[in-house]
């Protein structure tokens, strides 16, 4: 449960909040702090029904919200990361990976699936923030690349749901080159004239913003999502000034011309399927 893991619009749940929700049934809205019931959250597409806050969710939840009857074929599910640099910081990358496999039940920070939304075929690749901060390493790049190949081969539109802190440092330059790889594949998808929708969710930053997330035929987002290239802390340190209110929110990015629209998660499926219908007819 990804929404369980952050503080006020942040990343980590405070211990206080955890204590109040020992069985995971009740959870506090990170924005308005009102208690939310699990069933209500599912019902409400993981949007706080008090304040409209879009809770941070993962691939499991997005697939269940978007695919008809939560029915889809998972693509390339077994890809796992190598450790080409034998990277060790405060702990070996290999151990970090093992911990994340155990903690999340995921194989990396992305899953991809082919299903239908309101009867229309769609491939969705969706990032999982709770796997090493949704960082982009070789698996993320490779799965996106293969999903795009799949879309070209089967002539199916592609939806990329980004949610990432950026590059995965433990894969260093390998991680960097995933930006090149995904962008090159998107050039081929574009040439094949297959629609590509990029949904940037909270948060989308760094190398992900500077590659596939910004390259949609349409770029869209959810209310309040943090979207940027450089992180707010780095910018603040660079310019030595406080950042204006609302800086790097989806609304800010829309206003500056880099998003086509912002859509509430409760309207997401309807809006996506009407776009797909227009492209198909």
């Amino acid at each position: 449960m990804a929404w369980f893991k952050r503080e006020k619009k942040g990343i980590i749940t405070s211990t206080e909040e955890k204590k109040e929700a020992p069985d995971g049934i009740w959870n506090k809205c990170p924005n308005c702090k009102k208690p939310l019931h699990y069933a209500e959250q599912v019902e409400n597409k993981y949007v706080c029904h008090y304040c409209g806050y879009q809770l941070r969710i993962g691939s499991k939840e997005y697939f269940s919200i978007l695919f008809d009857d939560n029915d889809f074929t998972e693509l390339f599910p077994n890809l796992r990361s190598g450790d080409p640099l034998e990277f060790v910081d405060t702990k070996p990358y290999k151990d970090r990976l093992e911990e994340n496999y155990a903690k999340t039940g995921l194989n990396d920070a992305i899953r991809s699936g082919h299903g239908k939304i309101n009867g229309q075929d769609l491939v969705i690749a969706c990032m999982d923030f709770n796997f090493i901060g949704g960082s982009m390493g070789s698996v993320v790049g490779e799965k996106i690349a293969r999903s795009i190949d799949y879309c070209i081969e089967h002539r199916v539109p592609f939806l990329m749901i980004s949610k990432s802190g950026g590059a995965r440092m433990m894969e260093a330059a390998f991680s960097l080159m995933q930006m090149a790889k995904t962008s090159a594949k998107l050039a081929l998808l574009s040439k094949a004239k297959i629609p590509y929708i990029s949904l940037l969710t909270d948060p989308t930053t760094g190398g992900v913003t500077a590659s596939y997330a910004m390259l949609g035929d349409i770029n869209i987002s959810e209310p309040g999502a943090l979207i940027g290239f450089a992180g707010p802390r780095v910018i603040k340190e660079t310019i030595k000034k406080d950042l204006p209110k609302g800086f790097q929110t989806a609304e800010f990015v829309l206003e500056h011309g880099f998003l086509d629209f912002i859509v509430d998660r409760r309207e997401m499926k309807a809006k996506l399927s009407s776009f797909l219908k227009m492209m198909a007819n």
Partner: protein
Amino acid sequence: MNTSFDFEKPIAELLQQIEKVKQVEEKTKVDMSATLAELQEKLESAKKEVYSNPSGWQKVQISRHPDRPYTLQYIEMICDDFIEMHGDRTVKDDKAIVGGFGSINGRTVMIIGHQKGTNTKLRQYRNFGMANPEGYRKALRLMKLAEKFNKPVVTLIDTPGAYPGLEAEERGQGEAIARNLLEMSVLKVPVLCFVVGEGASGGALGIGIGDRVYMFENTWYSVISPESCSSILWRSWDFKEKAADCLKLTSENMYSNKLIDGIIPEPLGGAHYDPAAMAETLKAKIVEDLDALCSRDIDELINERIEKFCAMGVVQEG
């Protein structure tokens, strides 16, 4: 040499000694040539010793040496003629990225590169080689211009990163870099890229998609600088040397990991010891590669370019 690093101390000391002996010779008019020759010999062997196997962090330092040549200096040295072009046609002219048509042995080439300043004032003017979105968009405009007139593109990469500023975010730094990655991967002319100094992350990659990507011997290329990596992973700036090792960011590392196509050798000690020789090596490589690539079928070349980047990454099929 004005600036020397800790590990260059033996060299700096010998250089000082040589200078002193020369002064004495000047003053006293006594012939010191034997002493000088001896010192010169010592200097050469000290250089070999010091530079034979620099660590990752040492290479990072060499790559940032303020006396290293930057893009405009290379252009001056390798081109018979050059016409600089400015502006992204939307917002402004970014001074951290320069570009224009140049003539190399009579062949017209679009040359684009990061530009750092050569003194305090110019460093500010060039924003330390950190481009804003306008810089990447100027680069793309020039690449499209080259494509239109079927001229090959050469890029020189030397940046500590794309500028992390407020306006850069407002004007879409992420989008600008992303667009370049996509467009360069299918640009219908040959593209050569050279990391001539610092190759920091997306800011470097934003002009770094090519048929051939080379690193100069004493440069670095990675997803993050060793300093920032240290501060994020170890929560302290003190692990930059360790970070430089972990990131495997040297030209040798990058080549053995098949993330670049080759290494361009530098004069002993670094490009700044002999800029003219460095430029000559660069020019020879450009000429050699363009001779080979310009006659190739462009669609085939583009396919190979895409395939090359798509092969990068290490995954396991579970």
